[in-house]
């Protein structure tokens, strides 16, 4: 418990943050809207550890013995599956939420690292297509900028049902970011607070979705993979239904996944942690005989190669990063601290992406701010970061004696606490006890 000085005791229930929020709500009469992902502490990959090889298993020699990192996505139905050099992909983020320079930087970084980027709620920009070798086109409830020409230009299509930051909610883009170009792309009046739909307009339920997916395949002549993205909630059932609906790839986004703008109450109180969702998804796929046949991409709070390797060990085929990619570009960089302070934040804390005042030129449509981000330099930073993630994951895989990241398995993991053991379905360290499992 924090003490300002001896005798002044802060309430655990009514902490200073809670009191501040009550005061803010009373002042403004509107819920807090912000970007970023969940900030509360939830069981996460930090609560898992790898069991390196020793007597019973052989490790691989670092730098000498091969440890593969590539992945092929969309092998179920698509004529042209996606082949990537690394299992780390870039999650969907829109032009509108992000500046054109930030989108370009994401494409450049992903190209160098040999991975894919993804469009967002607002359509595909020509610059984005040009700068991304492998581009996944999101098909969202709002259908802003949805265009069959762009659909045919995409390397894969991602049907978005929800995202981890707000499962069951639509997007938001507030008036200050609806510039002429953004308004034109979304067919909306300039300067309005745009509320994206939370449900698709022309299908309801998994049976309709199967027909919708077939339509997308017919339009693209069955060439490209079709992903289904869900926010992590009832993941076991959602994954089974997504397989039944005909997905090539399923993307599961945990509650730590970021957003450009949503109610804080949504971000912090809806959805389940990424670590808890993966075993549910994998179990659903295994029961249907589809594990590794329908690929699983997981996202939400992935920061390091350790997180990547742990996702692989739990059974994912690939991961996606959003918030971490923006940080690599320069979001929340200390060199902008003075400017963050001016807008009531600080480097390392900034989450008001919806305001469009991002000092780093990333989550903004202000041309002057956006020009601060050099897409070539920022792209290089992202590529460096992606390479570090891949190298770190390889390091851990080799230590476990694995010649490919996909060979990592749950048996390589133990949990540091009971919660993580139960969610991840791996034993508590030093025991053979997995809560909820009978032996």
């Amino acid at each position, binding site marked *: 418990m924090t003490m300002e000085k001896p005798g002044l005791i802060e309430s655990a229930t009514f902490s200073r943050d809670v009191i501040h929020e009550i005061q803010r709500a009373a002042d403004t009469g509107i819920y807090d809207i912000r970007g970023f992902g969940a900030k509360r502490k939830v069981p996460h990959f930090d609560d898992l550890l790898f069991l390196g090889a020793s007597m019973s298993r052989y490790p691989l020699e670092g730098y000498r013995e091969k440890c593969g990192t590539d992945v092929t996505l969309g092998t179920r139905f698509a004529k042209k599956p996606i082949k990537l050099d690394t299992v780390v992909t870039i999650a969907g983020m829109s032009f509108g939420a992000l500046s054109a320079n930030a989108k370009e930087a994401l494409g450049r970084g992903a190209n160098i690292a040999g991975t894919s980027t993804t469009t967002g709620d607002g359509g595909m920009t020509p610059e984005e297509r040009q700068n991304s070798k492998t581009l996944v086109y999101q098909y969202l409830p709002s259908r802003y900028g949805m265009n*069959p020409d762009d*659909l045919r230009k995409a390397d894969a299509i991602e049907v978005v049902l929800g995202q981890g930051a707000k499962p069951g909610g639509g997007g938001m883009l507030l008036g200050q970011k609806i510039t002429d170009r953004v308004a034109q792309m*979304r067919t909306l009046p300039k300067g309005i*607070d745009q509320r994206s739909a939370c449900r698709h*307009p*022309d299908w309801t339920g998994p049976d309709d979705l199967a*027909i919708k997916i077939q339509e997308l395949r017919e339009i693209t002549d069955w060439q490209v993979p079709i992903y289904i993205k869900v926010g992590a909630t009832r993941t076991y059932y959602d994954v089974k239904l997504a397989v039944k609906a005909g997905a090539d790839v399923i993307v599961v986004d945990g509650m730590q996944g970021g957003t450009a703008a949503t109610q804080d109450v949504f971000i912090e109180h809806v959805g389940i942690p990424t670590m808890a969702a993966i075993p549910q998804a994998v179990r659903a796929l295994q029961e249907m005989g589809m594990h590794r046949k329908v690929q699983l991409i997981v996202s939400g709070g992935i920061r390091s190669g350790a997180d990547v390797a742990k996702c692989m060990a739990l059974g994912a085929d690939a991961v996606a990063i959003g918030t971490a990619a923006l940080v690599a570009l320069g979001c929340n960089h200390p060199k902008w601290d003075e400017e963050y302070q001016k807008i009531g934040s600080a480097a390392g804390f900034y989450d008001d992406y919806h305001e469009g005042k991002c000092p780093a030129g990333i989550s903004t449509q202000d041309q002057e701010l956006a020009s601060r981000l050099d897409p070539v330099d920022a792209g290089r930073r992202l590529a460096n970061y992606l390479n570090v993630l891949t190298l770190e994951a390889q390091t851990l895989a080799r230590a476990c004696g694995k010649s490919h990241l996909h060979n990592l398995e749950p048996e390589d993991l133990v949990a540091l606490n009971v919660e993580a053991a139960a969610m991840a379905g791996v034993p508590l360290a030093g025991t053979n006890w997995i809560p909820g499992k009978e032996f």
Partner: protein
Amino acid sequence: MKFDLKTQTVREVNQALHDLPKDKQAEVEINGISGDHNLAVGMDHPVKITLNGHAGYYCAGMNKEAEIIVNGNAGQGVAENMMSGKVHVKGNASQSAAATAHGGLLVVDGDAAARCGISMKGVNIVVKGSVGHMSAFMGQSGCLVVCGDAGEALGDSLYEAHLYVKGKVESLGADCIEKEMRAEHLEELSALLKEAGCDDNPEDFTRYGSGRQLYNFKVDNTSAY
């Protein structure tokens, strides 16, 4: 050119349609249809396609340039996300007709079900019969013309789409209001009625549009959000 779905698959027919030359006019007839889904989707050609029979879901989905006639009823999402061209349903249309469509013209000779023109983004829709509830929900741009009646919550959360209804409106949705029919609207409506082959008098219609009260978050609008 003729196809028969009794002997050919939807995939074969759609592939043959996509393989047509993009710069040449052509006439295509598709027979043997029995509620098949995804017929003539993703066209990007100035061709005329006649579908003889009842079409399933997403018929003429994402159409560009083609003129597609359905001699029967059409299932959910007919002409969804159409960009240009014309789709004419001679029977009734199921829900979400012309959902999110950006351009072109959809004509429905019969009735259209719920959510007709949902999230419309520039398409023009003329329904000679009535439309179901929540039609033009979140309509952003384009025109919805209804020669019959409209169901509950017409134009809920409407942006800038223009709505014209001749008959009774069960109820208006949030932020949808009756508006004055000015000369430019009569002109717009007359042109659409003519293009759709309707002889209704534009003067008999009422115009509805956005009240623009929900465009920016306001504390006192809580119940409307």
